[in-house]
């Protein structure tokens, strides 16, 4: 399925971000190759959540936000003339820290909500629902109660429903902003398995506070850091194994070994 949609390469070029007068990110250059999982790690306030939001233009919603640099999806600037925020977000899906299924909708309607929100017809809706839930590996748990309220699911199930909801849009890239931080270890493990399975069909970027998680799920890792009163930026970027076992920068070494953060 989804053979028509292939994973894409996403890259950022000299991305800097301001909130009002305060610069929070400076010159971030990263490449997220197709079918790879990239983990963004770093202490709180280093700008990694802000950065992941620039990748689908979600940070624009914060008043006073400003941006310099470019983000390319298969070579096309998502801040350029040919894109608007809505079409960017259709191609680049996002899952948030806290599970946020729509409380007024059933499980089924949650899956179809993206299609309806973006004003598209849900053709063969049943198929979309089943495929999305299967890809998020939650189909077996919910197939008999698709018309129950989404809020009746457990936290971990809700988060996988939110992943399925994004998958229904057939995104080329999936951004996950600390998707497991509100979940128990069991649910976390299942979501990590899902992420690995999904990487065969899409590009994945995940922000995480959990060092083990980064090592388990990602192919490459970017370490973000913001020194006192300076904007955040990337200290080190490379293959996950290398970043964790043989970091070049001393600060990376200190962080991944738990000396701070």
């Amino acid at each position, binding site marked *: 399925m989804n053979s028509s949609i292939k994973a894409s390469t996403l890259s950022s070029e000299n991305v800097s971000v301001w909130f009002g007068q305060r610069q929070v990110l400076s010159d971030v250059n990263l490449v997220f190759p197709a079918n790879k999982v990239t983990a963004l790690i770093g202490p709180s306030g280093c700008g990694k959540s802000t950065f992941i939001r620039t990748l689908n233009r979600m940070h624009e919603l914060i008043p006073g936000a400003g941006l310099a640099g470019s983000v390319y999806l298969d070579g096309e600037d998502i801040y350029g003339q040919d894109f608007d925020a809505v079409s960017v977000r259709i191609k680049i*899906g996002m899952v948030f820290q806290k599970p946020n299924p*729509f*409380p*007024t909708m059933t499980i089924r309607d949650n899956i179809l909500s993206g299609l309806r*929100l*973006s004003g598209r017809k849900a053709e063969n809706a049943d198929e979309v629902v089943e495929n999305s839930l299967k890809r998020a590996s939650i189909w077996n748990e919910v197939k008999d109660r698709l018309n129950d309220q989404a*809020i009746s699911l457990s936290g971990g199930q809700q988060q996988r429903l939110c992943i399925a909801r994004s998958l229904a*849009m057939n995104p080329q890239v999936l951004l996950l902003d600390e998707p497991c931080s509100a979940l128990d270890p069991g649910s976390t493990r299942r979501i990590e398995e899902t992420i690995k399975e999904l990487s065969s069909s899409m590009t994945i970027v995940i922000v995480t506070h959990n060092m083990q998680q980064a090592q388990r799920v990602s192919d490459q890792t970017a370490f973000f850091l913001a020194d006192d009163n300076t904007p955040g930026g990337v200290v080190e970027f490379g293959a996950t194994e290398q970043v964790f076992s043989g970091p070049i920068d001393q600060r990376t070494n200190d962080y991944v070994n738990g000396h701070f953060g």
Partner: protein
Amino acid sequence: MSESSVTKPAPVRRKLSAGPLSTGDKLFFGTASIAANFAFVLVATILIFLLIQALPALSSQGLPFIFGTEWNNAKDPIVMQIGPMIWGSLLIGALGVVFATPLAVSLAYLIVFMLPDRSSKAAASLVDLLAALPSVILGLWGLLVFTPVAAQWSSILNSNLGWIPLFQVSTVDNGFLGSPFIAGWIVAIMIVPIITSITREVFSQLDRDLINGALALGGSRLSTFRRVIFPTSSGAVVGGVLLGLGRALGETVAIFYVLQLSFDFNWGQILEPKGGAVASMILSKFGEASQAEVSGLIAAGLVLFILTLCINFVASVIVNRAQPWRKD
């Protein structure tokens, strides 16, 4: 095994004290419960007063008091029937809600989601200021300033959409004055602040993650509002609207100036100066009322009181029922 069959003494339950402990606590607790009970006593007293005063009229007029269409103090025995007034109150209240709700909800959306912080606060307090406007002022403004404008709107509606029964009039000679349409607008202006402030509160308590989730799925501002923000908050908004309606029904002075009273049912020709409203009728008749008439007017007040109580009750039921996911 054998030990377990030996009867253990039943555990002695300890007495837990959840009540107030210190003297200060007791004093505070006592004052608070007196104040709380005072509200019940007040409502009950008002109800009893109304009942006693209204009884003569209610027993002499019977059921036609509520459904009939005649008020004649020259007749003997006196005839007092307020059907068109009750209906008129409901009609004007409904019109007010229909006019005010879209205004108030858009206003709340603007204040919460679109305006930058400073102007949002300014707009919110401006709307609240509208609520503080004395209704006499609003009534006079309605009579002197707004009525000619609304008459103009009525004329446009009538000439373009006159084929719809809603916008028909028997004659255009009265210049579209004194109609429920105009009174509905005055009521709308009065209840916009209360609906806005409740809706604003609901919107600002809405989980921002839901809105972000909808936008991240490719929602536009409009589709996000229609499919996520509104369904999630509609229960509370309906509650706000009904609270507004409760207020609108009791509103007297503001529409007293702009509304033509007549004891005919106005079944929905909203541009026709026909019908009335209970509160306006009480005000217009109270000054020169005979002993018997006063009893009738108080009975009308009683009807209004019960109507408002019912609406508030329905409001609370709807609010509770509309948000089942809030219960956990």
